[in-house]
């Protein structure tokens, strides 16, 4: 899997691709795109999907994960409506046709 083929197309992902939906605050770090799409013929892990879609956007990558690769504490990533910390974290698999949703926590003052 690679970042090649990212289309930025909106709407339902094709069943040979996986889409990552970005919150508006991060979109400037992805060239203004709200959705990053990576081609996928089979299920992949969230970690490898993030590697693929952020490969061309290192500043975006740093917003989501620190240098050790860990997802930042107040970054929440959903697969089919389930937050990955309640699944298998970055090892959670995501299938072609599914979407990954990134939302920051709402907390603090």
């Amino acid at each position: 899997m690679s970042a090649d083929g990212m289309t930025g197309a909106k709407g339902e992902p094709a069943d040979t691709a996986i889409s990552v939906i970005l919150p508006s605050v991060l979109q400037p770090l992805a060239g203004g795109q709200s959705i990053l799409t990576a081609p996928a013929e089979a299920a992949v892990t969230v970690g490898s999907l993030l590697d693929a879609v952020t490969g061309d956007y290192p500043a975006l990558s740093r917003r989501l994960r620190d240098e050790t690769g860990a997802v930042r504490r107040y970054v929440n990533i959903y697969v089919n409506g389930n937050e990955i910390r309640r699944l298998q974290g970055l090892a959670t698999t995501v299938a072609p046709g599914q979407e990954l949703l990134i939302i920051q926590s709402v907390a603090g003052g």
Partner: protein
Amino acid sequence: MGVMATAESYVLAIGTKKGLWIATSPDRKDWSVSGPHFLMSEIPSIGIDTRAGRTRILVGVRSEHWGPTVFHSDDLGASWNEPENGAITFPDGTDAALERIWQIHPDADSRPGVVWAGCEPISVWKSTDGGEHFELNRGLWDHPHRSEWGAGYGGAAAHSIVVDPTGDKVHVAMSTGGVYRSLDGGTSWEPRNKGISAYFMPDPNPEFGQCVHKIAADAAVGGRLYAQNHHGVYRSDDDAESWESIADGLPADFGFVMLTHPRRAGTAWVIPLKADGERIPPDGKLAVHRTDDAGASWKRLDDGLPDPEYNAVLRDAACVDEAEPAGVYFGTRGGSVYASADEGEHFSEVASHLPDVLCVRAAAVSAAQVPPLPRRHD
């Protein structure tokens, strides 16, 4: 740094818990304030680098959501740049992640392009390209004491970096490890805390582990340093080989700030707080205290400051500029910022009701470096 006799404008960058404000003034009395930049991110560190014929403002930015990074601006905040791969990132193999940038310190005029950074987790970094990319100082990171350095309430930070302008001597202070010194440009480090009390430890005079809040060098006396400790104000005359108390004459020996004059021997400023357990100005009366004789005596300076004022001033929420006479600046956790154009004799308010002020840095710059000044938007 710039020559102040030709300065025609002053820049004051104000880092807060929720963003950055930039103030400019032709005379250090009337200020125009622009901002916020980086709204909702904290700005714990600022460096203003006036070398190389430009004014570069470097800021440590930390979002609770998106983590820490470094931005820089060469046009007084009109535009900002973030190095694509990050200015400060822990290398593979360290199994560490950057938490916060506590200090961005341009080196001496003799080493243009060199910028130091102090970070959390406790680490020191050095850039040779004006702050666009920093390398981890492995000597300190691999120091056998590192696992025993604690974390102060605010975090485990290397918060002070003092670099000798002519040699390879570097002093670093950290919470809570104390003062460390390198004589070889940062290759090797040794603790230098003799005489600084660590009353909160079983051995109150350990080799390291002191909670030093800030150190500063006397610009005109080689080997002389000052330290504001977690209770205790100290001076060293032998490059930190030993320290002695200079707290007599102050209303309290607690506080975070330690500033020194850019040129004049024996002149330093502190902003006392009542005590560890009562972190307010003594009796609710905010005052800066200045010594002109290396700590033998202190002068209370409060003209223009509010009474009462119960907010503390944090370690990097105070600075001096290099003008003649030197300007003194500080901000409170209540979001007020004050400036003095005469070394603290008189203060005026630059801004009020900002978020908690974490960091201020000021510089005098020539007119050629200053784009059209941003105006106050009120």
